């Protein structure tokens, strides 16, 4: 901590802080590069709407959790830090769950247990352990938002493809024109099944590494 305190005060969006926000979107993406949080990607990306709600929920939980742990970091005894982290995350998830139930009940029902399972999302615990425990609240906040956003855009991308090709809709509205169905087009039933989410993530990873060759040897 001492070296942190001795550092000169930096602006809120200094290059270093900006990096915290933007790295997880691309070359340090929690899903594409670190391969964390895959289970929820498989489970809730059948529709874009559920993906969107899940992404927003994770952004909220992660942003707050990182800030809270960062504020508490000097008072948490190292031996029970995991329990403390879990308590913080669980409290936030309960809040999110209640809010979803109150305002978007249908989607909350579709997400079912997966809202509760945000608690076990490895990305959140990982960032608390790796970052928030050793950093000040503001950088921790940016790190949390950045990682959750990195998780979120992959979720949205997968949800987009799965809904368009699997159900022919987008946010519940039909996007595949009727005449295509008339000439014999069919929705792809495999896109609705979880394996296709894995394959879609795989293709996103493939495209990303094709563009940025440095990533190939990282994981």
């Amino acid at each position, binding site marked *: 901590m001492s070296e942190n305190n001795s550092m000169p005060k930096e602006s809120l969006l200094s290059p270093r802080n900006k990096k915290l926000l933007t790295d997880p979107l691309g070359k340090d993406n929690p899903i594409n590069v670190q391969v964390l949080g895959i289970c929820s990607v498989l489970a809730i990306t059948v529709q874009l709407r559920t993906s969107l709600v899940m992404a927003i929920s994770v952004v909220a939980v992660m942003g707050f959790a990182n800030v809270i742990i960062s504020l508490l970091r000097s008072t948490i005894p190292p031996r029970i830090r995991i329990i403390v982290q879990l308590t913080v995350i669980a409290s936030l998830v309960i809040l999110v769950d209640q809010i979803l139930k109150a305002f978007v009940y249908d989607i909350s029902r579709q997400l079912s247990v997966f809202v509760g399972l945000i608690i076990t999302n490895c990305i959140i615990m990982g960032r608390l352990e790796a970052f928030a425990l050793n950093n000040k609240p503001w950088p921790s906040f940016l790190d949390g938002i950045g990682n959750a956003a990195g998780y979120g855009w992959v979720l949205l991308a997968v949800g987009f493809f799965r809904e368009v090709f699997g159900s022919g809709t987008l946010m519940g509205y039909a996007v595949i024109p009727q005449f295509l169905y008339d000439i014999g087009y069919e929705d792809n039933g*495999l896109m609705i099944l979880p394996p296709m989410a894995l394959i879609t993530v795989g293709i996103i990873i493939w495209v990303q590494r094709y563009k940025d060759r440095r990533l190939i040897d990282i994981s």
Partner: protein
Amino acid sequence: MKPLQNLVEKVKPHFEKGGRFEKFYRSFEAFETFLFVPGNVTTRGSHIRDAMDMKRTMVHVIIALVPVLLFGMWNVGYQHFKAIGVEAEFIDQFVYGLIKVLPIVIVSYAAGLAIEFIFASIRDHEVNEGFLVSGMLIPLIIPASTPLWMVAVATIFAVIIGKEVFGGTGMNILNPALLARAFLFFAYPSYLSGEVWIAGTAEQLDGVSGATPLAVLAIGEGDMPSAMEMFLGTIPGSIGETSTVAILLGAIVLVVTGVGSLRIMLSVVAGGLLMGGILNLVAVNEFMEIPPYYHLIMGGFAFGTVYMATDPVSASQTGVGKYIYGLLIGVLTVLIRVVNPAYPEGMMLAILFMNVFAPLIDHYVVQSHIKKRMQRMEKIPAKA
């Protein structure tokens, strides 16, 4: 042959480095080696080049597939005319089948080879021959009534996700042709199950039941064809899978030329009979009561055994491993068929499942060999 060779030699400089069509060198090379044995000479060390390179191996499989393909074409026509209740000459039946099947074969080849050529150009390697066989297998394991665009989508999916992402021919962990079928099966289930096995429009076939023997057993209604009919193959089903006779002819070609592994074929059959026999003992439903050998002649069992399970890339490589791999395919196929009512045909899933396990089986076989030899070593008294 000579004029053809002259032509190839004449256009060759255009495709080589610095030529006008340098970008298309890999495509040109593919056609050149398809027509003639390449004139490559080994420059370092001495070793023997077998004339049986990958292209010739693949051609042998294609030859083994010819009886199945021809029978399949005839059967498509036969089933169609039988279903609409019209007497037809042999030649009419065959021509009808030809018109139905040929477009599927062409689409499968065109889609798959297009992907192969694109990847070969991007990665600058030879166009691999593996697809020559996959492109022929795909049409044979789907119903003749499958829409052509679905064939194309499934083929593209299988070639990219099943093969190219792993590094191309020889690197795939799954059989690409079966992956294409699995894709169709899960993506467009209504086109690969139910009464889709007889080609023809809906009005023509109104009120005609086209259930396969497996579907008859799974649903529990309809007429079960006799064992002889199933053996000969005059039953509804995917284009190439119905006739056990034609498949046996292909099996002979594969075994004699050494392309297909007899060990795998025999152990798959043994596994199927074993599991069928065990289920006979409990026999709580109609599906379990059928004689075990029925499993061998129904559905895709025979086709899968001969052409799919023996795929040299995705099967086990070790001798003992091949027995285990084959046996488990047979057992799983019958188990999936009989126990899981959602999947009346288990061959595809069983082979794909065991494809995934093949490297694991090989690993343990090799490890046990090493262990045995180490023990033998320890018994030899050390020389002073």
